């Protein structure tokens, strides 16, 4: 019973490519998030998505865009990948805008 799942687990790609990472939660939660963890293990919030309202961390380049086909999914699209995008990306979800966040296992993205 995986609560928050991400695919793929690993993603290796070339600079300039466009890629997507998928996230699904089966907890019935209303809010989903994307975080980026860099090589120094710093975790940074990228997006919060609740009831079709998207809140974006101002430091996130507009090459990154979350897309939610339904409440259980929040996919991350990245255009024109750069070397600095290499990181582990974590999806999370919470019941609402104040609840505990449950994290996915992470997707390790490597841009060559």
């Amino acid at each position, binding site marked *: 019973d995986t609560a*928050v799942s991400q695919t793929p687990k690993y993603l290796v790609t070339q600079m300039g490519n466009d890629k997507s990472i998928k996230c699904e939660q089966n907890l019935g939660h209303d809010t989903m998030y994307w975080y980026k963890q860099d090589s120094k293990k710093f975790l940074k919030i990228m997006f919060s998505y609740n009831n079709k309202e998207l809140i974006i961390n101002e430091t996130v380049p507009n090459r990154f865009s979350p897309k939610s086909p339904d409440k259980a999914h929040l996919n991350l699209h990245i255009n024109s990948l750069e070397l600095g995008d290499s990181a582990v990306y974590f999806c999370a979800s*919470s019941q609402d805008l104040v609840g505990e966040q449950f994290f996915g296992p992470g997707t390790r993205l490597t841009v060559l």
Partner: protein
Amino acid sequence: AQRVTQPEKLLSVFKGAPVELKCNYSYSGSPELFWYVQYSRQRLQLLLRHISRESIKGFTADLNKGETSFHLKKPFAQEEDSAMYYCALGVYAGNMLTFGGGTRLMVKP
């Protein structure tokens, strides 16, 4: 802008010794603080949050607004406590968490 600082990247103690993982924050509003833990090969999970005021796995953390700290403490460390610990600050707009850099706790036998 909010900020969370964990000054120690690595903390190594012997089993049975007390442990304190430090966390300081800066935020102009009313803070909501959390500790998350990531055990080896497991996903990040919530350990405790300051509003619940409970002890989880023997860990406690007290919010000190005067010192802007939320240190995590345990009187007697166990080997199974070895993990990566992250302090996090929650803001109400979007429930977005700001994490500290993390502290790796190693409990030696």
